[in-house]
């Protein structure tokens, strides 16, 4: 009687511990979760070698086609809003662009492009952006008549 009573509680807690083990293994193995968790092992030493940012991260946004061709915007942590609205980061004077057309935002070390419900769509390379997509370096993003790309 006492044995079963305690035994059941022990089993119940074993279940909890088994669940927590899985949680822990997930934390260390970074099992495909795309949040970049700052790890303790990657301390200052490694950072000094590679510089402040990883070598292949984007530093500039360059307009390659369209009325604003040649424009460069240097990137920092803040998201880039693109559209005809005055408060956009990149203000387009383009009849094919919407007021709030697209947004580029930094997640971890990668930039993602997201369409903000534009009329004519945003294209990453030739694929229409329907969900946030990772933007590799040098791949053109087309918004109306304007094409931009990320450069390091």
């Amino acid at each position: 009687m006492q044995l079963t009573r305690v035994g059941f509680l022990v089993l119940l807690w074993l279940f909890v511990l088994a669940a927590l083990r899985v949680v822990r293994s997930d934390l260390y193995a970074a099992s495909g979760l795309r949040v970049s968790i700052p790890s303790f092992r990657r301390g200052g030493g490694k950072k000094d070698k590679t510089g402040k940012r990883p070598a292949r991260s984007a530093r500039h946004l360059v307009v390659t086609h369209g009325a604003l061709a040649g424009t460069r915007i240097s990137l920092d942590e803040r998201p880039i809003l693109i559209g005809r609205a005055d408060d956009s980061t990149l203000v387009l004077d383009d009849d094919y662009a919407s007021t709030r057309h697209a947004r580029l935002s930094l997640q971890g070390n990668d930039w993602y492009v997201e369409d903000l419900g534009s009329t004519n769509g945003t294209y990453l390379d030739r694929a229409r952006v329907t969900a946030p997509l990772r933007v590799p370096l040098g791949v053109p993003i087309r918004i109306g008549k304007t094409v931009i790309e990320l450069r390091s």
Partner: protein
Amino acid sequence: MSTPSGQSDQPSVGDLAAAPPSKVPTKRGVELMLLVFATVLVTGAFILVQGNQAQELKPEILFYALAYLAMFGIAHVVVRKFAPYADPLILPCVALLNGLGLVMIYRIDLAKAAAAERAASAFSGSAPGQVMFTAIGIVLFSVFLYFLRDHRMLSRYGYTLGLVGLALLILPGILPASISGAGGAKVWVRIPGLIGLQPGEFAKIMLFIFFASFLVAKRDLFMNAGRTFLGLELPRLRDLGPLLFALAASVGVLALEKDLGNSLLIFGVVLVLLYIATERFAWVLIGLIPFIAACVVAFKLLNHVQQRVTNWIDPFSNYSGAGGGYQLAQSLFGLGTGGIFGTGLGAGRPELVPEANSDFIVSGIGEELGFIGLAALLLIYLVLTMRGMRSAVAVRDTFGKLLGGALAFSLAWQVFVVVGGATKLIPETGLTTPFMSAGGSSLLANYILVAILLRISDAARRPKSTPSRPGVQNTPISQAHTVMVERPS
């Protein structure tokens, strides 16, 4: 509901049969192992209940154990097939909670049947019904995982779902009390001769989807506009319009139906959603002001709110009177009897608490498994919520983040309100304990909720499929397939 079979053969986004083996572990093995563990625990609990009730083992335990195993086996296979990258902890946690709830319901049935036998009156238990609703829940869960291949599909129906949700919420309020009333609250829709449902439980999920998709569409407005006042950035009022309207309607309706628990739940989740969407604490403060006002008004106007607050302050002041603190006092007695280690499953008397198998199932667990068992149970809820939140953090689209956060938080908030009510931390409001309480609608709705959460976690952990290079065209990309569309003025 069924689609032509040819349609399912077409490749879809969610179809991963042809996906190359990836480095991301699906962890389905872990899920299966934990499910087996949960089955062992639940079967053991059934045997303990029988043993402590000093009865020989009845064949019906075999039925319950096998039914349990079959149901979650099916659920596991469905997850393996349709959401292979889903979180491995969510389903086992749900299975264990559901199973322990089933054990408690069965155990209270036994006690009530014994009492009915002494009083020579008829009694029908609620455990078989709970098994049936679990089975229907698993079916719904599978149907949702099968048809909902991408959670972003839901955002397209945001306004529709919001409207339907609101209608479902209102429905019991305008139906005659003979159809919708029970225990003071008007939350049911009963079809005579058939099963009654509480549409509010389903409406809740629809409203969360609406709020999430609304906030995704309007998030930039929330972020950009606003004046600063006392260091807080205040939003513009007109951006709030639709949200406030929906909120006021749902809370008002629920107060009309005297269903305080659900209005508290919806209100809390919307506040948290606003906070997640805007990262501004001002929204929480702004939300708390009408909340406090609503509390005061409800306290002044509604009699049963006053009763509950009085019972909360002192359950013994009106111990045996109508609307008195008997229920809460019995719950506290039960928790006290259980102490640290509990009386052992089947050895306590949890049936003394009114509504022991639904609203107050937690006090029964606390009595028979003690503080240690109850703490383990709360940790399982915590793991469940945490995994949901984690999926929400990891998923890449904003809608998924908001919806996942809202669903996961709604579970935690519900547990807080229920356990807080049963342990006299906050006034009792009458919500169901997710997955444990006897009650069909809440169980079904929660299985739908879990299916959506699993879908979101599947999207979060699924490795990105390598984009296939389309045929090379040499037109400049700035001129490639531009579709001219008249811009709406």
